[in-house]
């Protein structure tokens, strides 16, 4: 069983993408699919460079829901990376892991909620958590790097050990303007 206890982390953890990569590897993740987002850029690079992990570039986010289901049917753990706008694309496809009770771990970077410059991001930002919850996905939020690591570690347990569909929302305040 991978050790997914919360890593040591100070409140000002800034290298969370590297730590997330290590944490997800330790949780047994071997497929990572994504629609790119600036907030996920480092983590995507880590997965793309990782020979143990199939990194799969998607044209739209719901593809990743179906791919994760296939991976689980074949005995492989996966993670799906997207921006909050992509959650809206996923709703009907989420029927599959919810109805089949398959593990699903989504890491969602938030837009449209903190210092946003593009108003088009705001409506889906507001709809992200309610939409996920409406179809049966458990939603957790992280506002600091330390929180994100602890929450993701236990979300991986809930997904892969308890057959749950879990989305971890990464607050835009944590991502910060600089990284955009």
């Amino acid at each position, binding site marked *: 069983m991978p050790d997914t206890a919360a890593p040591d982390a100070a409140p000002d953890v800034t290298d969370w993408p590297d730590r997330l990569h290590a944490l997800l590897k330790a949780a047994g993740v*071997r*497929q990572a699919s994504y629609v790119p987002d600036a907030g996920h850029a480092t983590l995507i690079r880590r997965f793309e460079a990782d020979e143990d992990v*199939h990194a*799969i*570039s*998607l*044209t*739209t986010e*719901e*593809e990743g*829901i*179906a*791919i*994760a*289901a*296939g*991976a*689980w*049917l*074949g*005995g*492989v753990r*996966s993670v799906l990376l997207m921006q909050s706008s992509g959650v809206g694309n996923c709703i*009907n*496809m989420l*029927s*599959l892991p919810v*109805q*089949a*009770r*398959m593990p699903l771990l989504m890491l969602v970077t938030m837009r449209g909620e903190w210092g946003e410059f593009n108003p088009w991001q705001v409506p889906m930002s507001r709809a992200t958590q309610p939409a996920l919850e409406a179809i049966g996905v458990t939603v957790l939020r992280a506002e600091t790097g330390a929180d994100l690591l602890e929450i993701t570690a236990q979300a991986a347990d809930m997904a892969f*050990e*308890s*057959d749950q569909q879990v989305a971890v929302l990464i607050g835009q305040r944590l991502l910060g303007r600089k990284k955009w």
Partner: protein
Amino acid sequence: MVTAMSDATTQGQGTGMDRRAAVARLIAARDGALVVTGLGSPSYDVHAAGDDPANYYLWGAMGGAALVALGLALAQPGRRVMAITGDGEQLMALGALATIATARPRNLDLIVLDNGHYGETGMQRSHTGRGLDLAAMAAAAGWAEAATLHGLQEVDALALRLRDPAEGPRMAVLKIAAENPPRSLPPRDATFIKTRFRAHLGLAPC
């Protein structure tokens, strides 16, 4: 592109192969392949050819069948994976043609049963029924093979060829008659089918 009309069945509306006969041939020659089916008639066709724990039937998640097969193919590189779906289902996920081409699994074959219509909902004409060529789109996306088949003899040849190693994902569009054979309903419990499928691969339920 294959254009022969050799032994195409002409029962039902218009011309085209008998879908049950075509799928039965592919399933009979599966040779251990794992099979994922798209919602509606393709699930019924595969079930009619014989229920099997190595089948994962979708009853929803439209657009997902070929992508479930992709995740499975990458997870099980030593096994051949065959997705069997319809033109309507695949048209909903044209981006999947790009994603699968880019991921380039060598053990994924996609069979599209193309009657040019949405058979489950009243036989409304689909985009392929209005001229769209799915095999040409797959070829343009970079699939290793993409062909359109019109006769059961071609399906027999395909079933044998699919056992050979592939350089990348392969697609075959089977032109079938626009008709709805009697439904052959697979279990609707997605969890049961999942657990049965995983057990077939020696995987624990949870």
